[in-house]
């Protein structure tokens, strides 16, 4: 035991903050971003009567290397990150995508002149995740 101690070089006091740096959340981490459009921009206001404005939102940002419970990500996400970092960088890193949506009610004029009120599923992103 003495010999092994004598041989081993004195390692500098381990710098914990360095160790944790690799797990810090990225600056522009994955999160929900606002986006609002009006159907007149798409020139659809002739047949979409309401709503006038529509905020579909979107997800953007880098996924931290260790996503864990923060994004409700499955373990597969970390496995994919390890593959990307250690085995094959052609495998993409996990992406920042919507995890939940809310519906949208739309009032439109049909080609035959009838009018329809419809509630569509999954039209507004409300939560992001890394996958």
């Amino acid at each position: 035991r003495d010999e092994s101690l004598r041989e081993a070089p004195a390692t500098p006091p381990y710098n914990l903050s360095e160790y944790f740096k690799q797990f810090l959340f990225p600056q522009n981490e994955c999160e929900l971003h606002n986006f609002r459009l009006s159907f007149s921009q798409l020139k659809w206001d002739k047949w979409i009567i309401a709503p006038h404005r529509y905020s579909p939102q979107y997800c953007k940002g880098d996924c931290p290397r260790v996503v864990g419970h923060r994004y409700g990500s499955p373990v597969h996400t970390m496995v994919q990150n390890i593959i990307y970092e250690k085995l094959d960088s052609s495998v993409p890193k996990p992406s920042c995508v919507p995890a939940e949506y809310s519906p949208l009610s739309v009032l439109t004029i049909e080609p035959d002149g009838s009018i329809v009120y419809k509630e569509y599923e999954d039209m507004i992103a409300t939560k992001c995740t890394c996958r």
Partner: protein
Amino acid sequence: PHSRGRGVSDRTPGLLGAPEDAVSGLNPLLRPPKGVRRGYALLPPLLKVLSDRGRQTGESEAPRLQPDSRALRYMKRLYKMSATKEGIPKAHKSHLYNTVRLFTPCSECKHRHRDLTKGDVHSVDLLFNLDRVTALEHLLKSVLLYSFDTSLPISSSLTCMCHLSVKERDFSSQVCPSLSHSIAFSLHFEVRKRKWVEIDVTSFLRPLIATNRRNIHMAVNFTCLMGDPQQNTKLENPINMALVPPSLLLYLNDTSEQAYHRWHSLRHRRKNPVRPRQRSSPLADPTGDRGEENSQGKRASRRR
């Protein structure tokens, strides 16, 4: 599309459903694979916009017939009652529908005759074309929507007799007589600045709509008298109402994938509460969460 147990979606016209001809004009990359079930046939105009990358949006839209202004006013009012300004559906218990379609009668059938022998009877012959109703839209309620402008004193009450008959062609017999189901009912309502009168014809039309009837041909005799039968038996002269031929309103439950289902989202929310799930991966938390064992313990007890 992942199936949520609601069956394969059929063509859903409107925002997310483009008529089949829209598919032919699409960029080949966006067309559904050959022989794919109809479920894929609904390529929304949204995709059409993406495929017409060069062209300005809205140019490729086929011209649409303009709706009746009264009908438009009614549907805008219905929209305000059903959704917020941002377009989020309001959660009403009674609000079971996720689709409401308003049809105005075809112009060529709108004629009106007065049977002068019986006084002032308004009779209108109506033909509604229901082509836009898809096979996945199930009828919840149907209403004849009368709007009328009268110079009635506001406090007056009206008693109306309504005789409704539906004419349908009977293809089985050679002579093709027009069979007709008819129903007569009286309505009593207060005119308090009311511009609309809704006549529930659900039970009457359900069999026709359930059999995917595309055209509904009906004759409506509408006689309104001032006064209230309870108070004075002698009803005064029939008022001369400028009756506008009614629109047909269908409250539907669209069972396709794109449509929003309250009961589904409520059940989904109950199953997966919004709180993020604890992950017990070795790398989950570099600080080695001391609480791990009791969260595991908690999880095990929850599973038990």
